[in-house]
Every structure is written in C-alpha cells, then in structure tokens.
C-alpha cells in the first residue's frame, strides 16, 4: 500500500500510532492527520484586525472614532477590532498505575511508553500521552502557549507553558520519561499547577477518572474559582467499556486493590450500569462547573480528542470576543 493512498484518519488509529517509534513523529503524524482530514479548520480566517462599525455613544473612547466616516457622512462611528487572543493550554496527564491498563496488543519493536513496553499492549497512558503530544503540537503550531504535566499522587513532571520553539522538545521529553505508578489525585495535581498559573488557562485533563469523584470535584471547583476553563478527557480501554470477557477468575487491581473473584458473565450487566453511573456522575460534576467530559476508547482513533480540543478552543476564542 502506498503512503499516498492513506487517509488522514488512518494516522490517528492506535494501531498506526503504536508502530511509530519516535514520539515526535507520532505526534506530528497525528496533528497533520487532523489538519489534513478536516475540511474546514476552526482556525481558518482568524486573527483579522477590523471587525465592525458601531454608532458612537456617550462614554466611548474617542480614540476609536473613524474620522474618515465622519468626514464623509457627518456621523460618529466607532471602529471595533477583533481582539487578538493568545490561548494558554495546560495539559495534565494521569500517570497513575491504573493508566497502565490496556488490552490492544502491540507487536515487539513498536514504539510507545514504558507502560507499553512492559505490558506489550497499547495502554491508556499510551493513548493519553499520544493525545497530549498531538494536542501540544497543534497548540504550538498555532503559536499558543502550552505546558504539560504528568501527575499521580502529585505532580511528577511538568513543563511550564510557553510558545517557544524548543517547547515541543521539552514536552515530549516529559511525557515519554515519566513512569506510571501510584494513585491519581487530581486535587493535589491541580493545586500544584494553579500555584504556577496566573493567566486564564484551558486545563486539559487526560485520565481514566476511575478514582474518587470527590477529589475530582474539589479540583474542578478550584479551577472554576480561579476562572479557568477545563476539558476532561476520559481514557478508557475498550474492555473496560464493554467487559467483553467470559471468564470466572480472580481480578486483581493495578493500584493495590484487594483481589476479587468475578464471573464476568454474571456481573456484566451490573458492571456496565455502574460504569455508566460513574461516568454520568463525573459528567454532571464537570457540567456543574461549565466544563465538558469526553470519553474515549483507547482502541479507537485519537482524532476525536483533537477535534474536541479545537472545538473547545474556538468556543473560548469566541467567548473572548464577546
């Protein structure tokens, strides 16, 4: 198959990504795939200076009066300009042990994180880091300031927000070097990030959100209180979403939970109901603060992740104009 015949979506599938050993290459392929694959970019036509004329009202600054119009029509009009926005994005990737779960097989020699290499599967952490890198690449290509952090029970590694040219290298290094271990504490991680954040920022949190919902609520409340925007991207493995297993076996947790004897056939229905309830609860929490939750299947393309981000960014830009 020649590479010319490849469609953009094919670059976004986990199977393809897993075969791209260099992390940078993988992110670039994703970003290019998204850009090429989208018919109408949400960024198209941005950054134009003049927006519209408006009749002068008392109190308006006379600096923006359009004197040429006044000269021709003897009426006072004020020129309005579209505000130039500069988005700050902070990507927080969950690096807890539960993120090392994955069931999509990858072959020996394929690229990925430590989690991939250890387990021989495409893990949730792989999916999250691939998505995070691609997001960062996109942001940087739009000259947005972007930073990244990997956290579990606290921040493990972070790269401060910047739009500098070498920022991309720093982000990739951070994402590819952090191990997956311990439990995820969103509140602790957000607290640490907020301590370093002064401008209004879009926080993108990539996690499986399988931990305590209360901790997440606290974190989101802090973000809202500081006036930041946030996106919750839930990375869940296909098997977690469907429980497509017919076994009766002991199940052991990745974060040190007690082993449990389970017959999947007997509890599948209840499990899926519980999962639904759990995700709906997180979604409710997110919406309560004006945020969104997107659930992603790690067996599927990372394209929707990026599309979701771009859609969100457009919304923020539009909100800024208002």
């Amino acid at each position, binding site marked *: 198959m020649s590479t010319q015949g490849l469609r953009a979506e094919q670059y976004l599938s986990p199977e393809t990504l897993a075969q791209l050993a260099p992390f940078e290459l993988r992110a670039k392929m994703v970003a290019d795939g998204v850009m090429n694959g989208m018919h109408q970019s949400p960024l198209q036509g941005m950054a134009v200076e003049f927006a519209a004329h408006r009749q002068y009202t008392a109190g308006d600054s006379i600096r923006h009066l359009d004197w040429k119009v006044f000269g021709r029509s003897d009426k006072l009009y004020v020129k309005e300009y579209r505000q130039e926005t500069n988005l700050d994005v902070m990507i927080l990737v969950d690096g807890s042990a539960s993120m090392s779960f994955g069931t999509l097989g990858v072959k020996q020699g394929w690229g990925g994180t430590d989690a991939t290499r250890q387990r021989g599967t495409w893990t949730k952490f792989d999916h999250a880091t691939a998505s995070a890198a691609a997001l960062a690449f996109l942001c940087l290509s739009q000259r947005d300031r972007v930073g990244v952090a990997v956290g579990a029970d606290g921040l493990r590694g972070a790269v401060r927000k910047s739009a500098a040219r070498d920022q991309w290298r720093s982000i990739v290094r951070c994402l590819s070097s952090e191990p997956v271990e311990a439990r995820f504490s969103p509140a602790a991680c957000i607290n640490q990030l907020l301590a370093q954040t002064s401008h209004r920022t879009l926080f993108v949190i990539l996690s*499986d959100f399988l931990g305590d919902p209360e901790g997440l609520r606290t974190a989101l409340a802090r973000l809202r209180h500081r006036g930041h925007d946030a996106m919750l991207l839930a990375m869940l493995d296909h098997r977690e979403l469907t429980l497509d*297993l017919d076994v009766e076996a002991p199940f052991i947790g990745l974060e040190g939970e007690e082993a449990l004897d389970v017959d999947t056939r007997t509890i599948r229905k209840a499990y899926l109901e*519980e999962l639904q309830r759990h995700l709906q609860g997180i979604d409710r929490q997110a919406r309560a603060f004006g945020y969104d939750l997107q659930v992603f299947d790690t067996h599927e393309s990372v394209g929707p992740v990026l599309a979701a981000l771009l859609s969100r960014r457009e919304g923020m830009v539009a909100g800024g104009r208002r």
Partner: protein
Amino acid sequence: MTFINPWLAVAGAAAMALPILIHLFLRRRQKPIEWAAMELLRRAVQQSQRTRRVERWILLVLRCLALLLVGLAIARPATVTALSMNQPVTMAVVLDDSVASRTAASPTSAPGQTAFEAARTACIESIRALPSGSLVHVFTTSGTIEHTGDAVQPDRAIAILGTLQPTFEPSRVRQAVDRADDVLGRSSMPGRIVLASSFSRGAIDTEAQVLPPTKAILEIRDVGSDDTGTAAIVSVMQRTLGPQSTGSVTVDVTVTRPSSEQARRNVPVTVTDAMTDRSATADAVFIEGSQRAVATLTLVVDPAVNEHAWMASIPTDRQPADDMRATTISTVSSHPVLVLDRERLDVDEGSSAQWIERALEPIAGMGLAHRRMDPSEVRAGSLKGATSIIICRPELLDAAGWAECTVACEAGALIVIVPPTEETFMDWQDPCAAMLGPGVTIRRDVMNHEPPRRLQPQQPTSPITQLIASELTELVAPIEVDRSVMIEGPSTTLSPVLVMDDGAPLMVLSTKGRGVIVMLATAPVPSWNTLATKPIFVPLVQETIRQGEVLLDAGGSVSIGLGRLPTGTTELRPIRGSTAAESSLTVDPSGVIVSDGVKPGIMQVVMAQDATASMSRRSSFVALNVDPAACDPQRNDAARLAAWLNQTMSPQTNVVTATSSTQSTTSVSVWLLLAAALVVLAETLLGRMFSVPEPKAA
C-alpha cells in the same frame, strides 16, 4: 431398594459429579486478571454476583440431578414389594430342580451348598414370610413333579420342598412359570410367583427361552452359581471303526472349561468299559486361551465282543452335574457291505461296483467285508441284517427294490447311491430323490463338463470326512470331474460332503428314519472323473462306510429329557449309572421315558418282539447323558440377563431380583426417566430465565 443393574446406578451417581468436576476444572484453569476499574467491579459484584451465584448453583444441582436420575432409571431400581404384608396370597413356588441346579451355588452362599439347596432355602424363606391364610403351589422347572392343582398350607409346602431332589432333566422355566400363572389366575386371592434358580446358562437360556408376561407378581430369587475351576465332557468318540486287529480302541474325550481366569489347565479324564470294568485315565490339557481340549485314551478290548459301552467322567470336578458322559461303540462290523450290481466281466475300465469294492479292500484282511447282490433280486426281507448298502446300479432297482431299501434305511442302515454309468431310460432319479428326502430333485440329464470341473479347495465340514479333513484340500486338488448329475434340495435335508468349484454338490448326506443316505453326483469310473484313480478314493469310500455307520441311530446316546429312544424300545435296564441300584425305566411307544428319576448311565435296551424283527441292526445298549448345555454352570451375562428380564416384563408384572423381595422396575424406571426429562426441561427454562441479556457497552 435394590437395582437390577447396580453398576449403572453407581455410574449414574458418578456421572453426577461430572458437572461439578467440569465446573471446578474450568475454575482452576483461570489465571488472575489485572483490572483497572476495580471499584466498579466490586460494586457490580456486590450488586449481582450473589444472586447469580445462587442461580448457577440451582442450575448445577439440576444438571447433576438429571444425570443421577438417568443413571438410576437405567439401573432399573426395584422397590420393596407393595404387597400388603397382612393380605393373604396364593404363592406359586417354582423351584429349579433341573440338572443345572446340581452345580455349586454362588461363592457367597454356604460352603458346599448346591444351587438347588440354595434355591430351596430361598423358596422356604419366601413361604415363611407369607401372611397367615396364604396358600402355596409347588412347581419344579424340570417338570418332573406332576402338579395336582390344589394349593397347600405353607407348612405342607415346606415339607414337599424338603423331599425334592435335583434331577438330570433340562430346565423348562417357561413351561413352569406358565403353569404357575395359569393356576394362580384361577385363585381368588392375589397371586405371587417365586422363581428360585441359579440363573446360570444351563438354567436359563436367554436366547432360546422367553419368560411370558405373568399376571401375578413375579419374584426372582437369584442364588447364583460358581463356575470357577469346572470342566465338562461334551463328547466321547472312537477314532476307528471296524475290525480291531490290535485288540484296543482309541477314544477321544472332548472336554470344555469356562473362560474364567481360574479355569483349570489339566483335567484328568477316566473312561471305563461298562461291561468289563476296564478303565484308562488321561489328562485333557488346555492350551492358553483355549476353552476346549481333547484327552486321548486307549482301552484294551476283547475282539470277540461287538459292542462296548464307555463311561467317561472327570473324577475331580467341583461340579457333579456335567462331568460324566456315556457312549456306546461298535468295535466290530459284523455285517458285510452289500454292493448292489450285476456281475460283469466285459468292462474295460471297470464298473462303479468294481472300483468301490477295490477301495473297500485295498489290503487283504484290513478292509471291510463286502458281498455283491443283483439289484433286481432285492425283495422283501432280502436286505435284512445289512448295515451298509451301496447302490451302484439304481436303474436296475424296481419299485419293490426301492421300497425295501427305504425300509432298511429307516430301520437303521447306511445307503450309498452312485449314479448309473450308462445311458438308461429307466426312471431311477425320482425314487432316489424321494429316498433322499422331501424337496430333493435329481436332473434326468447327465451334465458333461468341458473343461472338467474341479473341487473347491475348502470343502465343507462333514461328519463323513472329519477324520481326513486336515488332508482334504490336498486330496481333492487333483480330482477332475467330466460328468455328473445335478442334485438339488433344501439345506435342511441335504448337507454337502464334497462340492465342486461351481458350488454344485459332488457328494451329499441325508438322513431318513434312523438311517443315513450318502449320494455321489458322479460315478467313480474313469470316463466320468478321475476320482477312482486318485489317492482320495480309498479313504473316502472307507470313511463313508465307517463314519456313516457311526451316524446311525441304533441305540447310541440319548440326552435326558431331550432325545427319543429307538422305536420299539419298551424298557431300559440299568447296567451302570451315576448311582447304583437303579430300577428299570419304562418307555412309551413314542420313545419317551415315562418313569421318574432318570439318571445318566448305560442302560440295556429291551425291545418289543416285532420291533426286533424289523431292525436291521440291533443295539444292546443306550447311553443316557445329561445335555452339556443344560448343566452349563457359567453365569449368564448380567446385561443379557437384565435384558431377558425386561423382555419378559409387562407393566403388571412385578419382577423381584437378587435375594430381596422387590417390586416392578419398569414403572419406576419410566417415572425416573420422566423426572429426568422434567429436570432437564426445568434446567433449560431456568437457564434461559437466568441468562443475562447481552448489555450495551457504556
């Protein structure tokens, strides 16, 4: 409760463990699975697994139950009889007193007890358990006790049973049970039949006898039999016949043993001359895996005595019923062979009669005596005293001649017929075919074979050729047949002795009355075949005469309860038997012994005067033997016996087995199978109800 097939019940119980083992095996095989969403899993387990586990246990129990029920149904359970213990009944006790009951009872019974004694004890137990007011009929399987039709009190029945002794008669279970059921059918009280037997192969022939469905409750008391280490004599046969120049006779005694591992390897056999008390002993040595062996014994005889009676016995056998067999043997052929042909001197190649006469007397003094008679001179009484008649010119026999030959044959003569060598318009085929038997035809035209026919290498087994059977293939190989007549007839009438390569018979054997007829399809002359010039001819002719005479039913051996005695026999006087001091036995005109207490042994035959006059060959003795099959102590195969019982049961019939009184198995088994079907149905429905519909992914 007991089971007719207890092993199947055990198998059913064992099969019950199968679903559990599968469950445990599948469970053990699973390796631990790592999982991230443990909290969700834990909540789901709390919510549903307990309920599902109960449901799955219910299904598992139902599956086990279904297997158990099927196993029990196949095992045919029998419950304790439902007869009210207080209600008087009429009981018919059918005691096995046949020769099979003389064998040792099951090893679990009292030491030294015979099957008859064990069966009698079982019957007495059943009688003693009867409620007061009950009546008893006593029947025996040998049928030797004539039932009066009147029921007796239990005490009287026990006394009658105490007087009974085992007989040498074969078992007639069907007739006895039939009679008992008939008698009980006329009773106003509920009927109950108790059949006590060893159920060995001798007692119950599961292939030949079918127990009729009875209206009364049928209890079966199986006392078992012990066949380990037993042996039985099945035949005693003299090797040679005719003049005994050596003054001794060689006798082959064939002995069988059961196929069990405890079977004996060497069985000593003793043969005693009933007349002189001379005896000889030899071992029948069984080779590994064989169930049959032959002991060869040589006995000194007096050449002046024409007939001897031998008794072969196994002196150290555990089973007394089947270890003795008597036989009568003619050691000297006192009557010359009569050859029916005209004296001819002008035949180049020689006539059939000349070739046959040469074969009868190859060496002077060692052959068979013979004399020539013109066929046209055969008239009433002219053949009297002849034991072997060779008809070389059948076309010369007139109707009176054929009639006389037929009478001689029926009276116990050997007739050998050879087709005429010359073309003739005389009808010899039809009377000849009529003599051979019903349905036999002989074609009128002589068939010319071009190229000549040969004989099949593998010839059929025949008593005529039994002593030359091992060399027969070699002997028949050079024979070529150019001409022959076609003999056709039903296999029940004609048995082939020699056959040609196209399947057509060259020599056939038939019986008529007490006589034997052998017919050649070709004349033994060179223009018809090469038979007369080949090495087979002399032994074939001599064996035809010797073995043909052995086949003649002139006294000989009779099986007790089965065989018929020679016509005209009125009385049998004991010479030597299984026990001493026997009284004479009376025989009815049809040849059946009407006296009681028939025992095996050598008996002197007393014949009516007119019968003696018509007999061509008189025998002084008859050997009364037990039928080896009727006293076979080997256990009936359990499955076959169970199938036999099933075959005999009707829904109203209650069959009781083993040593305890039990009730019908048919209805219980049907109910069990029905229950198993319901359980399977319930399992299917519950399984469907419990099954979790495939949910949609979150």
